[in-house]
């Protein structure tokens, strides 16, 4: 049996090269792989293409998120559902660099982002979605009518690595998430060549997790790192 367990977050991200495409799970806090993000900041890989719901709001203190890698200028491009905060008055570290033309972005609807990730991990070459028809999102895309309704052709979005934050795993690498921590985890784990999982709880022996209760089967996970005892697992996201 391949040992997937790594002792430190630094060891789990040590081989990531410049220019890697990395998926980051997380939505509005839960599921954000904060320790893996911090480790990649220390590791220093540059020119990263990040696939994520949002390129981070804070990126500092307890609230480490993708904003930390943005501030460190390690991100060259994001594929995301947000490149600016929901409310015009709120600020994101990414927006400033994007306005200045220092980073690239591919902005898309959240469901299209999810389905492109899902397709990449499902052996699907392309799909048609009704989302975005008649908007800027449709520019340059094939539009096809099925049963009287227009759809856009969208392509899969694969990655070299996925950074996923989950609740617990067994020694084989079967993973469970807790509540809304799940968000992008299962689809990203399938779509990346190497999936690195940050875990709230200590790793349990094989057989401890009911096979019917596995959210991400072990075949989709490659590296497991447990958040050290005494450290906050999910931080409180309001400030």
């Amino acid at each position, binding site marked *: 049996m391949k040992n997937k367990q790594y002792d430190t977050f630094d060891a789990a991200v040590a081989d990531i090269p410049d220019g890697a495409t990395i998926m980051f799970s997380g*939505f*509005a*806090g*839960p599921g954000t792989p904060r320790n893996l993000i911090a480790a990649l900041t220390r590791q220093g890989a540059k020119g990263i293409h990040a696939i994520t719901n949002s390129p981070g709001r804070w990126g500092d203190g307890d609230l480490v998120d993708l904003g930390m890698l943005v501030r460190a200028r390690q991100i060259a491009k994001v594929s995301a*559902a*947000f*490149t*600016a*905060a*929901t*409310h*015009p008055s709120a600020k994101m570290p990414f*927006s400033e660099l*994007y*306005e200045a033309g220092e980073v690239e*972005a591919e*902005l*898309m*609807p*959240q*469901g*299209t982002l*999810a*389905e492109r*990730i*899902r397709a990449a991990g499902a052996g699907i070459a392309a799909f048609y*979605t*009704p*989302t*975005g*028809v*008649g*908007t*800027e*999102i449709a520019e340059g895309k094939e539009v096809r009518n099925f049963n009287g309704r227009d759809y856009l052709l969208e392509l899969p979005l694969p990655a070299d690595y996925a950074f996923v934050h989950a*609740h617990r795993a067994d020694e084989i690498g079967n993973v469970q*998430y*807790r*509540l*809304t*921590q*799940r*968000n*992008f*985890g*299962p*689809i990203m784990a399938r779509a990346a060549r190497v999936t690195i999982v940050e875990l709230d709880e200590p790793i349990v022996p094989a057989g401890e997790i009911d096979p019917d209760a596995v*959210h991400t089967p072990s075949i989709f996970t490659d590296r497991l790192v447990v958040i050290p005892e005494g450290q906050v*697992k*999910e*931080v*409180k*996201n*309001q400030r």
Partner: protein
Amino acid sequence: MTDKQPLDRQTMADRIAMEFQDGWVVNLGIGMPTLCANFVHADKEIVYQAENGLLNYGPMAIDGEEDRWLVNAGGQYVLPLPGMATMDHGDSFALIRSGYVDVTVLGAYEVAANGDFANWRILGRKGGGIGGAMDLAVGAKNVYVIMDHTTRDGQARLLERCALPLTAVGVVKLVSTNLGLVEITPSGFLLREIAPDYEPEEVQALTGADLAIASDLRTVQTAG
């Protein structure tokens, strides 16, 4: 001048919540739409869905009782309900696009008389925040909007055609503003209800397209 006041945010949200039918699956957008959850449905059962993968969740958690693993789509901590289910983003948007959501309530910058609306990018800014709005707008059976009738400097937000980049084409059915309740019919805007002490002519003057007045125009219904 009278001392009349436009409607407050909760009243605008309450008026939309009154449209929800028993058993409806409801998705609430960030901002004012979230306030719809405060409306008490005495005789109706409402199922709230959040696009981050949450079905049948409960009210907002007060400080100290939150579970850090449980947030709605606005990142607010909510309480679990018996029968709640979680799912990943793939499944959540599968549910949304395939028509299981009865109504999505969204905020907007502009709504047009043909049902187009814009809510993700302001002019002069590069990029924006699409989030789940485009998927919800094409997938939900009903799209309702809550927004102020005008911008802060008094420009109309209800327009003949949107000036800002669109979120979706021809989907909005009902708009609750601080001046009234506007339905979008095949022939354009129809003022069904009006804020207390306002005259239809005043609302028309603050609307950027023709505003038909319902023959049975009434004052906006309020909670309780």
